[in-house]
């Protein structure tokens, strides 16, 4: 038994020795090996920094309150529990608000995909007097910090007179999703300038032959766009949809501004943490519980996004290469 172990060990040592010799006497290989090691360490380190907050939240969300006072508990909880998730779900009205948020985000993302594809195609393939200027305005629209137009936008939607068509008090659109829908329909919602830009770059990189064939066959520009260009724009369509969905999901600024009263997830999460941070009315919840519950709530918040990303990641990462965003 011992002999065989020794034998195996010596064989392994010999293997390593020849391996080292082969590698050591070959400077190019040695360099490659060193770089591979450095790269592995760097990639692992950076990945750790990215995943670290997630891990912290996970271990916090899964532990019972006693573990917070237990100095021997650092990463692995001693008393596993799902009670934090239950409290968070109850206080956020998770199922309801997640459904509402999914509905609103899908709607906005679908609109934005359609609108930005159309506008981007228009900029990519047609030029008319002023089209360059309008495209410059697209880029400018990205640069205006939302806080500059925040107050006027809020007031215009609070007293919405269809810009002078209705009588003075107008409609109150705050607390409905109409402001966001209208902005999405006109390609001015969150970061839509970026979408228009990348769609334009993508269409510019596509060959003209297909379109020309369609024109020769007598298709109108709209028909050509719908049945020739859009079916060939799968990757960019998916990128725009994913980004738009995710950015609306994570958005607090516009939701807080326009969607007051609708319990979308960011607002639900915000009110949950505020309630826990500033009021001590619930006797069942003590100070150390806040962190645990909000950790669970944060995980619940990102869970649907992680699922979406998990399903789409392969296409996502590959389509970046295909899209040639940079064109």
């Amino acid at each position: 038994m011992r002999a065989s172990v020794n034998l195996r060990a010596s064989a392994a040592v010999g293997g390593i020795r020849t391996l080292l010799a082969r590698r050591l006497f070959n400077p190019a290989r040695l360099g490659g090996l060193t770089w591979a090691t450095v790269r592995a360490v760097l990639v692992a380190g950076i990945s750790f920094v990215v995943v670290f907050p997630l891990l912290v939240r996970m271990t916090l969300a899964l532990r019972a309150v006693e573990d917070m006072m237990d100095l021997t508990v650092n990463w692995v909880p001693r008393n596993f529990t799902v009670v934090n998730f239950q409290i968070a779900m109850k206080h956020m009205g998770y199922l309801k608000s997640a459904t509402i948020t999914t509905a609103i985000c899908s709607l906005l993302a679908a609109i934005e995909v359609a609108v930005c594809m159309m506008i981007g195609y228009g900029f990519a393939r047609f030029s008319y007097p002023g089209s360059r200027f309008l495209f410059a305005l697209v880029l400018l629209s990205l640069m205006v910090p939302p806080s500059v137009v925040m107050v006027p936008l809020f007031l215009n939607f609070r007293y919405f007179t269809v810009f002078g068509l209705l009588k003075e008090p107008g409609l109150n659109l705050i607390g409905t999703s109409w402001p966001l829908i209208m902005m999405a329909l006109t390609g001015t919602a969150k970061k839509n300038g970026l979408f228009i830009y990348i769609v334009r770059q993508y269409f510019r990189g596509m060959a003209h032959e297909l379109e020309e064939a369609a024109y020769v066959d007598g298709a109108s520009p709209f028909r050509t766009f719908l049945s020739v260009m859009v079916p060939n724009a799968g990757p960019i369509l998916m990128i725009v949809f994913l980004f738009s969905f995710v950015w609306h999901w994570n958005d607090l600024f516009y939701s807080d501004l326009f969607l007051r009263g609708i319990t979308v997830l960011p607002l639900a999460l915000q009110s949950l943490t505020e309630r826990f941070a500033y009021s001590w009315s619930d006797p069942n919840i003590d100070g150390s519980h806040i962190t645990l519950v909000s950790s669970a709530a944060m995980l619940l918040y990102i869970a649907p996004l992680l699922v979406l990303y998990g399903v789409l990641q392969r296409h996502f990462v590959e389509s970046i290469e295909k899209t040639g965003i940079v064109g």
Partner: protein
Amino acid sequence: MKTGRLLPRLSLNSQRSLMGFVFTCPFAIGFALFLLYPFVQSILFSFSELSLSPEGFTTSLVGLKNYHRVLFVDPRFRRVFVETIGGLLIDIPAVLMFSFFAATILNQKFKGRLLARIVFFLPVILGAEVFVQINQTEYMSQALGMASKGIVDMQQMKVIFGGTRATETVVEFLMDSINRIPQIIQASGIQILIFLAALQSIPASLYEAADVEGATGWESFWKITFPLMVPMFMVNIAYTVIDTFTSPSNRLMMYIKSSAWTGGGYGVSVAMAWFYFLALMLILGIAMAIVSRGVQYES
């Protein structure tokens, strides 16, 4: 073409111009209604006082009062302004360097590259704005040093290295930069994407030719990759400046927003936003001027 019959006879060129306008007109409308109009209003608001009622809002001109109040009366604005902009000026070059570096790594072939890419782009998905607020209000986790702990402990490092005041400031600066690393990685997702897409568009034949001529990997990086990537630096500088400045989770944006509803009122908040916008334009202009000197376009 059907449109040709419906419309008065147009040349093919003007037909195409018209179609182009039809395709892009949603943005023209949106820009006018949801950007230009509020933009002009916000200039007006910054010089006036607003009062709301159920019947509508009224404005009355007050001259430079709002600006005066922002600069000389508001106790926190100047400090938050300087701190935020200072922080952004450190972050922007760091984000650029990091994302370029990360993109070059992700462009190489190695085992687990797909996994690495998935993890590197994860911050794009996880950047919920509400989390920033939670991290700020969570006193408990701060006390426990879990959620918001930096990579290194400032106090310990000061004790170890900081003998005099001068070394202490140096140590403080270094530690501060190190503790920004997570923040920088979080902010680099899209920039990595842009660089990566550009790296993939460099034809392999260039590298092959360099290899045949006996260039090392190091040489072909500096002679081929880097020059071709300089225009992308422009794109990424613009994106980073805009993204970090307009990100609703930076402190100044939060302060401007909160002062609209609680502090000085709408006019003051808009005046603050205008200072901020001007600073953004200034920094973007300077950055572009510096970088555009180094750009060599193909052809």
